[in-house]
């Protein structure tokens, strides 16, 4: 299937996201930011108070991840996705500030989130939950940018290469969860 994968480099542009359709396989290169529930809560509170964010969200992609600690010599420990729906409450606020994509596992995402993805032109990518040792191989760098006190829930900045993902929600309202069940239910 590798031949069909679409290569993308982050940060993503409007043109990048407009090409993507649900079911597309992609390989991502570039920067991803890593954040889970607690970091999202802080980012959103900061936006609500009008504070300055620790990074510019324009075009960025957030990966929902809380990795295991790296063993000596590793860039990162095991680093698979966490359940995306827990971030549905926060993600639209970040998308309004330019966030172009989120990567996680699980869904379908909430109705509000799906609508916001169409309004703000942002993609939900899925990467395989629990394929965490395999996914870790695509990381070239990893550093904590903020909220180090949160341990595995800190805000990370990663450099990735050929990071494998699938487009679940495109900006046109396509949802691979709905489509998948429609196609395979018997």
């Amino acid at each position, binding site marked *: 299937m590798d031949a069909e994968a679409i290569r993308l480099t982050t940060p993503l542009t409007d043109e990048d996201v407009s090409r993507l359709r649900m079911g597309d396989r992609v390989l991502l290169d570039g920067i991803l930011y890593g954040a889970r529930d607690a970091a999202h809560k802080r980012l959103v509170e900061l936006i609500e108070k009008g504070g300055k964010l620790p990074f510019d969200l324009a075009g960025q992609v957030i990966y929902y991840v809380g990795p295991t*600690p790296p*063993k000596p010599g590793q860039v990162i420990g095991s680093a698979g996705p966490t359940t995306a729906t827990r971030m549905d409450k926060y993600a639209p606020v970040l998308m309004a500030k330019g966030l172009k994509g989120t990567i996680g596992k699980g869904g379908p995402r909430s109705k509000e989130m799906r609508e916001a993805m169409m309004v703000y032109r942002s993609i939900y990518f899925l990467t*395989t939950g629990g394929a965490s040792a395999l996914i870790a191989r695509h990381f070239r760098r990893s550093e904590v940018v903020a909220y180090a006190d949160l341990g*595995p829930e800190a805000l990370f900045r990663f450099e990735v290469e050929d990071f494998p993902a699938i487009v679940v929600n495109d900006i046109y309202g396509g949802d691979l969860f709905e489509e998948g069940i*429609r196609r395979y239910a018997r």
Partner: protein
Amino acid sequence: MREIHCDQITAAVAKLCVEANYFLGADVVQALEGALKRENSPVGREILKQLIENADIARAEQVPLCQDTGFTVVLVELGQDVRIVGGSLVDAINEGVRQGYQEGFLRYSIVGDPLLRKNTGDNTPACIHVEVLPGEVFKLTVMAKGAGCENMSALKMLKPSDGIEGVKGFVMKVIKEGGGNPCPPIIVGVGIGGTFELAAYLSKKALLRRPLGSHHPEPTVASLEEELLRAINESGLGPMGLGGRTTALAVHLETYSCHIASLPVAVNIDCHSHRFKQIWL
């Protein structure tokens, strides 16, 4: 009276925590390979291949299969003729978890207070169950239970008149509502009967049956397991919920006597990262 020292228990728990997180059981790998042969969704096939490869990498490099290295659930099967010496059993187990999670580079995923939510920094305390048995047996089971799938589990007190159809309906409802969140392909443990808390416990114990996909000795229960597995895989959810034939790798049921007025049913979901190891001391 047989004596077992706490240090032995601590060392065993530490080792099992690491092994459970690094080495996926051969029965689970086999089930994934079987599923790959049957799966007809291209995305589903790709996901199953990744999971098999992931298990290979984790084994070869000795790294965690999944970054959610779980809540540590420890089941002690304790012979009544065994005496624990050298300290407290509970402390010995928690010390084993502390050592295992540190030495194995596993993630600390436990908060001390469910409402205040501050990480305990060593993955303790474990969730400990003790079953007392006759004789001198001492068996430890250590499970690393991920939250993504635990969160999609549910319990319902059905009415006796709901019967088998009610049980099937509830199991299917739980699976469908879970969607892709518990990282399908999943393993489904169902506890039927007992009381509210016993049904939940049975559903967890059902997950611990080995080998994966073997059936309950009671033929009516075994056929219900088969029927549910078929129905779950016909739901179309598929790997990661993106469509396909492989939603569950196995359904295990455990039952217990219950009150004339009740029919408790608990559904405990585990993900493909079905991690537990056992040892007899």
